[in-house]
């Protein structure tokens, strides 16, 4: 199983002071949520962890190996990423879209096998989009496309799941179903590391949190110790009212 660590990592956001370096240690079985206001660098952090963006300083290590030195194909077998925006390029069906998740596992001249097809179909089933398998992706609703993107990551089957706002566009039921699926993946020994906008989803489903503050400060640790109203109020610059419901804290913005 694969863990992810960062050593003295400073993400590179143009025109912003470096702030506090990140020394994260993300282990298999953990569900991490990244919280912070708009523009604080959540997406840049995910891209940096995936080796798609050069850090300003420090390193991202996958099993002690720096990701920037790894071959992309090798990296893609360990680490996958659901992007916040997607480019459709040419029309493709839902099934074809999920199947590209097999790309890092196949040799150049190989065609998708029966087993690859089954993996993709299982993923579409798990995300409740199997009934759309022959539809063209660009004709789907935002929430359906989001689920297809997560199904593509599931078909890729990496040990490390990075997700940028996985609940974007999802209705309430599918938000809960998706978070359940992701925590299930973590329970099976994978790492789930995601940016979230919804404080309450994070409080409900994540066991570890990373708070990124606008000034470049950051703090991270187990969710219970991070979910301090005063810290969260400072994070968003918004007064909060905390209530207890269904065994978990719920944060409501104060008027």
């Amino acid at each position, binding site marked *: 199983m694969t863990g992810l660590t960062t050593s003295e990592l400073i993400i590179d956001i143009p025109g912003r002071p470096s702030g506090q370096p990140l020394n994260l240690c993300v282990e298999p079985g953990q569900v991490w949520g990244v919280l912070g206001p708009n523009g604080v660098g959540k997406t840049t952090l995910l*891209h940096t962890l*995936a080796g*798609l963006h050069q850090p300003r300083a420090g390193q991202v290590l996958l099993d002690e190996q720096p990701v920037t030195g790894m*071959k*992309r*194909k*090798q*990296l*893609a*077998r360990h680490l*996958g*990423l659901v*992007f916040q925006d*997607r*480019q*459709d*390029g*040419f*029309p*493709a*069906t839902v099934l*074809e879209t999920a199947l*590209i*998740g097999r*790309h*890092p596992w*196949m040799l*150049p*001249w190989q*065609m*998708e096998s029966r087993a690859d097809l089954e993996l993709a179909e299982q993923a579409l089933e798990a995300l409740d989009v199997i009934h759309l398998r022959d539809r063209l992706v660009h004709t789907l609703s935002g929430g359906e496309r989001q689920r297809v993107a997560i199904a593509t990551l599931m078909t*890729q089957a990496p040990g490390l799941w990075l997700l940028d706002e996985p609940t974007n566009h999802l209705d309430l039921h599918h938000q809960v179903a998706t978070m359940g699926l992701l925590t299930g993946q973590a329970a099976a020994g994978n790492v789930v590391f995601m940016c979230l906008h919804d404080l309450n989803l994070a409080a409900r489903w994540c066991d570890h949190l990373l708070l990124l503050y606008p000034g470049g400060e950051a703090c991270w640790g187990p969710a219970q110790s991070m979910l301090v109203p005063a810290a969260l109020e400072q994070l968003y610059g918004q007064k909060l009212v905390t209530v207890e419901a269904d065994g978990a804290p719920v944060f409501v913005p104060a008027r």
Partner: protein
Amino acid sequence: MPLSSTLRPLLVLALISIVAMVISVSIGSSAMELGQTLAVLTGGGTELQQTLILDLRLPRTLSAFATGGLLAVAGALMQVLLRNPLADPYVLGLSGGAAVGALLAMLAGVAGFVVSGSAFAGAMLATLLVFGLAHGTGSWTPSRLLLTGVVMASGWGALITLILAMTPASRLPGMLYWLMGDLSHAGTPGPALIILVLVCLLVFPLGRSLNVLARGPMQAAALGVSVRPLEWLIYLLASILTATAVTMAGSVGFVGLVVPHMLRLVLGNDQRLILPACALAGGGLLVLADALARVVIAPEQLPVGVITALVGVPTFLYLLYRSR
């Protein structure tokens, strides 16, 4: 996708291409019956028929096939590279550079091989210019590449007009035929056919990477594609294909734009299927267009580019009108 569903459409297209070639060698200012054509192709027939078909029509037909195939594959590659379904092999000013090269050679009064060599040099120069300028100080985005190419193309267009304006009237027809695409001076088809086959063999294993690249460079990188080297390779291949085609037949329009489009509508977007299908369909289409060009106003010949444009413009507008 299983291999069989890839092979079936390719077999159908190959068959259509062969039929097109047989038709093409049979018709012309002295038409021949199918039986006679087949007899000649298998080694029979009179000496006159042998010369007519094997020395005149067959090389020209094969040249047409190679040109069409090269242009269609180049178009399909460019469309993936620029992630823009409206890209074609000429959109980056390649044909403009080639045309300026060829016309300058013609203006200097040379002919034959020098014109071809000059066209090839012009195409490669245009490629390097666009590539270098679009690369600029770092970022190399499809929109920047496209804009650089389009602006360069209009620059080449101005040079072409300038050359035409300075040319004595007696030399103009040859130049105009070249500009519209003309297969009557195509020369031997061998090298172009070899390049076409080699590139098809090379891009087939790249097909899946191209499928992933079509979804954007970030997604492709996240799925294990080394994006930058792949983009360079496609750009280089598309340039060589286009330069070879332009060198043989001048600037034949619309094949590179329309053929990949039509195939995508019918066969979907798997590049592993689309690229070889483009080679076959583009080749077949140009063979038929050239056959038409030879007979419509026989014994005079039309430049084949006129036929492809006359067919291509309405087809393309129809596709654009239908697309959402």
